[in-house]
């Protein structure tokens, strides 16, 4: 199975929330303002949204990695 996975660099994340702002269908926020990321592999439109979220983060705290399973 291919596709890419959205992962956070948690020490870098400061709960600015821009990932949720640009991709609310993909990323919601926990009660403390930190992103709840999708765990499944992303492709197509969802992958595009994920790319937007990665670029929107002022802390560069999001990465898209190849999902190896």
């Amino acid at each position, binding site marked *: 199975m291919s596709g890419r996975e959205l992962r*956070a*660099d*948690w*020490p870098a994340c400061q709960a600015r929330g821009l990932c949720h702002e640009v991709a609310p269908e993909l990323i919601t926020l926990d009660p*403390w303002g*930190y992103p*709840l990321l999708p765990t499944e592999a992303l492709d197509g439109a969802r992958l595009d949204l994920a790319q937007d979220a990665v670029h929107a983060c002022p802390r560069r705290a999001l990465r898209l*990695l190849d999902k190896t399973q």
Partner: protein
Amino acid sequence: MRPIIHPGPWLLRPGGQVLATHRLRFGPLPTLSADELADRCAASGVLGRGGAGFPFATKLRAAASRRAVRRHVVVNVAEGEPASAKDAALVETAPHLVLDGAALTAAALRAREVALVVPHERPWLGELLRHALAERPDRGLRWRFHTAAPGFVSGESSAVTELVAGRPNLPVTSWAPTAVAGVAGRPTLLSNAETFAQVATLVLAPDRVPGPATEPGTRLLSVTRPDGIHVVEVTHGSPWTEVLTEEEVDRPVLLGGFHGTWLAPGSLLPLTVSASMREHGAALGAGIVIPLAAGTCPLLRTAEILDYLAAQSAGRCGPCFHGLPALADAFGRAVRGGSTAEVENIVHLVRGRGACSHPDGTVRLAASALAVFADDLAAHRSGHCSAVSGSLPAGLRALGATA
């Protein structure tokens, strides 16, 4: 406080502190290539003793396989868990086994320096290691000491590689396994002190390793008792009745330390000390065994541990430094007769969200307490505690009144 060390059949045999005695027992240290060393470790299936139980051979092959100008070997003696003392016991009893294992690994990886990470809480261990090193003729090998910061998370793998690289001793996000990219992004073989000792015995005396052929070797266990931490060594396959008293086995036991799971009374009776315990939902981890003290409420004890773990967050990852105190608070309310729904909610929110396994381990403890002590929770909701006789402990005085 120093651990109470019981003489053991293999690693904890007395007299190993002196190099001459050690060499008489085990012979000279050979030099093996990475392949040779990995093959020997794979044949006996030696697993890491730091908690994750990862096959040493796999780690070694990964660290050896990438082209690198420099590779690192790191011996983790940091032992950040308060209830763990096995690495301290090993350094006191058999430092040369630890150092032999590290020297073998360094030679196999062509690393010229070994990092020794010692705990803040037990400063005498650094001195014992320096004393042992002064006796050794390891040529072409430098030994460098690093002292871990006080606290629970300092011994975590990424925190240790950060420390060795000269940065603050705190966990960071690992994008690749340590063996592939560890200290300063270089291939790093980081293992627990006991792992290195077990590897050394495999190479030095393969025919004398005790234990069953299917699982050769021994385990060092730290058992918490009222008078302190007892460190015992048993061969794989030993029944738990050789480790714990009849009374201890009949009480709830927290296996795996503060990130472990609770076992109901008597659960250990049909089991033996073995990596295969994982299949029964009771993983050995780093061999930390905490029988519940007599007359103690298991829920109160868990609540205390959760409070401690929340305070030990590195403070770097939002879901951890917000989530763990919230979890501890919600658990405290559930212990005093409230609902467990909030605890379950936070468990789902926090799990898997953090740079290291501190949040995961903490929610594992909370979830196992809710599962194993469901009856106790029900009793608390009815206003009484079945674990204690006589008057209720201070933490439960408000039983029946939800916060």
